């Protein structure tokens, strides 16, 4: 094990232990902070409740998956369009860059009035929030393909479809994957934040519901679950990415 991994683990562990001791000894206000072990046990207990698993956990996972998959498919298609048509790329580029400057969640009220309450507006927010990251990275990946690779394909007289499968996609894949990695992070943020502010279902909702009912254990257990989901997904994708880069080098 390398030294920096060891120190990373030490930092995280010592933070958790200090926090645990501080709450157990009541150095921190017990109406604001609860011990980490209590949080963790409450999180495990939540999964024994089928209502929680079906209505909240399941809904959130479904919303995240749909919005993420939608963003990846649409994003790659749009990215290809932007790569094939220089004019569209040139026109849309500044707008794509400005996209993340807008606090996108402000649009949620409008989505509700257009699409009704339910999972659809939440999915749409998650999808639109992650879409530009995929578009930009896909277009960039295809644009950065080395000329040599394209020439190899042409010298074999490949059709456009064959070029896509055998040349363009494998060459652009690392860039596209970066977009996909961002997309999942943004989908998670988009879905959970929307549920958190204005929704009646999902993990984000359980946090705001517990907060409004002074249920500290419920609130912290859901917060911990959300953080764990985000970190695990991030870690797994980071690992896959490092494998991809190793293969491509």
């Amino acid at each position: 094990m390398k030294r920096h991994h060891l120190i990373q683990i030490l930092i995280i562990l010592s933070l958790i232990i200090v926090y645990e001791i501080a709450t157990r000894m009541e150095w921190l206000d017990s109406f604001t902070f609860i011990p980490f072990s209590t949080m963790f046990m409450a999180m495990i207990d939540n999964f024994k409740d089928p209502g929680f698993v079906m209505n909240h956990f399941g809904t959130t996972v479904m919303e995240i998956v749909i919005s993420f998959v939608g963003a990846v498919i649409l994003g790659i298609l749009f990215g290809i369009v932007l790569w094939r048509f220089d004019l569209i790329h040139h026109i849309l580029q500044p707008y794509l860059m400005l996209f993340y400057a807008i606090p996108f969640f402000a649009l949620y009220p409008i989505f509700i009035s257009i699409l009704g309450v339910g999972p659809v507006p939440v999915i749409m927010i998650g999808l639109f929030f992650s879409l530009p990251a995929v578009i930009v990275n896909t277009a960039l990946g295809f644009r950065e393909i080395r000329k040599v690779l394209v020439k190899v394909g042409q010298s074999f007289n490949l059709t456009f479809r064959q070029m896509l499968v055998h040349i363009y996609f494998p060459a652009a894949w690392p860039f596209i994957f970066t977009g996909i990695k961002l997309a999942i992070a943004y989908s998670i943020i988009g879905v959970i934040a929307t549920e958190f502010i204005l929704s009646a279902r999902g993990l984000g909702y359980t946090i705001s519901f517990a907060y409004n009912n002074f249920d500290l254990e419920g609130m912290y257990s859901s917060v911990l679950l959300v953080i764990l989901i985000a970190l695990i997904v991030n870690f797994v994708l980071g690992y896959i990415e490092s494998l991809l880069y190793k293969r491509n080098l």
Partner: protein
Amino acid sequence: MKSNTSFEKWSTIGRWLVPVILVILWELIYIMLGEPAMASPWQSVVNLSENFGNWLQDIGNTLLTLLISFVISALVGSILGFFIGLSPFWTKTLSPLVLGLYSIPKVTLYPIFLLIFGLTISGRVAFSVFHGIFPIMIICMEATRAIPAIYLKLAKSYQMSFFQKAKNILIPAIMPQLVVGLRMCFSLCFLGLILAEMFASYEGLGHRLVHYMSLNQPSSILALILIIVFIAFFFTFLFLIWQERNERKIGKSKVNAV
């Protein structure tokens, strides 16, 4: 050459067409959905001009909170990032942790800020700082770590003190990335602030949005969104101008490409 100029012409026309198309789309959605669910662009603009006086206080409140939190997170984030970036070992150790923090949906932590600070402006500032500080820290860390070794050698050969080195070599070297980081930091502070105001607050633009949502007044909601988008674009443009100036100063090519 001729085709090149026509390309330029069409792309300028296209860039102006995008907002026009968006407004037309908006109008089409309005026509499709009808009165109670949607408002037309014209109604929203009228509503905006009628209510602007009433909203001035909320706009001022949001802008003030935003400015305070942006300044704090920019200063703290860039200084922390800078000092961590000076040591390659600590950059390698801490950057995955900071990236992990960056990827979690931070809005879910806002109730904890509420428990600590209550429904005050300091709670919103603290949350907004927390929301915006990580990208600038990451960018600053990476930029400082990536300063070419030859620059540091130059500093050594002139026997510069640390402050001279920081002022004359290190900070100018990371400046281009720093401006990009500041822009992202600003956007994220704004996003965090609006989210915080939407969740629980008695004042500010986010609070107004939720208020009109419960009254079901789409024209006011859309008018507020127009204001929010305007604020976001206005400051982003300032940052982009600054970025372009910086890039011109160093001759457009990336510093790290040395």
